């Protein structure tokens, strides 16, 4: 095993495992102590292994050292010991022999409890995502800052404020009951989806990191699905949605790191296994009365896995966007709906509808108008694309718009 890549991946996976288990035991009040002890464990690992080499069983080494450090901390810090005395007593053992349970089952139970704690609406959506990336997924502050195209201090403050709010609210870390699941699961799913979107749509150049974000979101969703009490149709629909999107991850960029538009993608590079998986989960999600926004978005994403342009494909996409917009408006959905309309009813009809949208600060609005005017009034199309170019801040989008203008000038 390559010692250099082993530690970072191991760090991320085991950091979140041990942090979850310890937090589950000690409560949100002690989250910083927990994080310090776990960070310390990895520091010891780095120091020890760089001299003695990677041990036979790195995971066991980390768990043994974490256990010792926790025991020592309890022994030495009387305030801490008093504070967690309930947890120790319920173990029925003397405090020096407090054991942390790092079995598979306790790790996944702890993770589920932590998901509900971290995705608590007492914090803003932005804060929940940052906290999720840090505590649930094990990403570092710098990595999160890179993905959000901001600096360390901003993320550091955001995460600390979020933890303070959880402590102020004395938010418990526990298995969610039926009531809590019913009330909070939609927000949990939304946070997971936003983590995925951060990876999928981020304009950061670090592709590996972004792919990791997507994989982490899928992993968190898997935890939700694997637990009977949280395995709802909406959770399955979200899973399907993420599988469909992720299936095109490799086809979206060429070797130079430039974005490739959907129409130009080589569909042999689409991951068929993920498409099959997504289709399976969309089918099993389509039971019962509930039609969540994830069902609709997954339905749309399903049709996008069929590359052929057909009336059936675009009629279905139009219907789904109509439905989605009625549940919740978003400028992206409005623009995409109008594009689908052009595919079903033609560009002239769609242009009229597009102009009603009046999204005059949105670069994608002008890209849509440019696209709709292409072939009808190319001079106007170029004007719209140039307007889009002035408004966009995304390098990838600039490339796309440039290509669209070049195509018209041929």
């Amino acid at each position, binding site marked *: 095993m390559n010692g250099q890549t082993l530690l970072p991946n191991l760090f991320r996976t085991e950091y979140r495992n041990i942090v979850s288990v310890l937090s589950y035991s000690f409560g949100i009040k002690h989250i910083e102590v927990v994080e310090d002890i776990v960070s310390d464990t990895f520091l010891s690992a780095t120091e020890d292994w760089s001299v003695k080499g990677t041990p036979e069983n790195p995971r066991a080494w980390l768990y043994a050292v974490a256990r010792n450090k926790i025991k020592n901390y309890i022994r030495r810090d009387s305030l801490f010991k008093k504070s967690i005395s309930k947890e120790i007593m319920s173990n029925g053992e003397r405090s020096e022999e407090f054991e942390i349970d790092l079995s598979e089952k306790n790790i996944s139970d702890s993770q589920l409890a932590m998901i509900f704690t971290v995705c608590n609406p007492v914090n803003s959506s932005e804060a929940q995502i940052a906290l999720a990336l840090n505590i649930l997924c094990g990403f570092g502050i710098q990595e999160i800052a890179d993905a959000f195209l901001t600096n360390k201090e901003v993320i550091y403050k955001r995460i600390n404020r979020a933890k303070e709010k959880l402590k102020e609210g004395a938010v418990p870390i526990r298995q969610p009951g039926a009531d809590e699941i019913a009330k909070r699961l939609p927000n949990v799913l939304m946070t997971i989806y936003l983590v995925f979107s951060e990876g999928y749509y981020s304009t950061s150049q670090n592709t590996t990191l972004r792919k990791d974000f997507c994989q982490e979101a899928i992993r968190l969703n898997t935890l939700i699905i694997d637990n009977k009490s949280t395995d709802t149709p909406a959770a399955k629909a979200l899973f399907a949605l993420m599988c469909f999107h992720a299936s095109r991850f490799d086809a979206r960029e060429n070797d130079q790191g430039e974005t490739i538009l959907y129409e130009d993608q080589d569909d042999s590079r689409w991951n068929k296994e993920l498409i099959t998986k997504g289709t399976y989960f969309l089918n099993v999600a389509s039971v019962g009365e509930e039609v969540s926004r994830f069902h609709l978005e997954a339905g749309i994403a399903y049709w996008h896995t069929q590359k052929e342009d057909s009336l059936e494909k675009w009629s279905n996409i139009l219907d789904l966007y109509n439905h989605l917009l009625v549940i919740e408006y978003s400028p992206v959905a409005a623009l995409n709906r109008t594009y689908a309309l052009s595919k079903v009813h033609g560009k002239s009809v769609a242009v009229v509808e597009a102009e009603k949208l*009046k999204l005059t600060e949105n670069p994608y609005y002008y890209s849509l108008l440019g696209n709709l005017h292409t072939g009808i009034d190319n001079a106007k199309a170029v004007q719209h694309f140039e307007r889009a170019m002035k408004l966009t801040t995304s390098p990838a989008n600039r490339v796309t718009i440039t290509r669209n203008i070049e195509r018209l000038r041929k």
Partner: protein
Amino acid sequence: MNEYILIIHRDMISKDATPSPQQMQEAIKPFQDWIGGIAAQNKLVSPPKRWDGVGKVVKQNNVVTDGPYAEIKESVGGMVLIRANDYEEAAEIAKGCPVIKWGAVVEIRMALTAPTI
């Protein structure tokens, strides 16, 4: 921006009423497109409900009769709550209702905002 209610009136009683059941069926997709178009402009206040054709009417002296209110052959078929800048705009939106061409009538009323104290 104000809220406006669009009340779609149509004949739900006469034997040869138009829009006919067949026409109503054909209007389903156009209706969804019309509502989708309003939603795309962020002018839909809430998802429109659909209403059954059973109905009851209550009048003076505790008289209760069956069926939708049809004194003027124009019962209430459905309602859509939208946002618009003025009546002109609301009327433009209402023109998109796909069953008008078969005899339905859309009444538009503006919501009054509560006076601020």
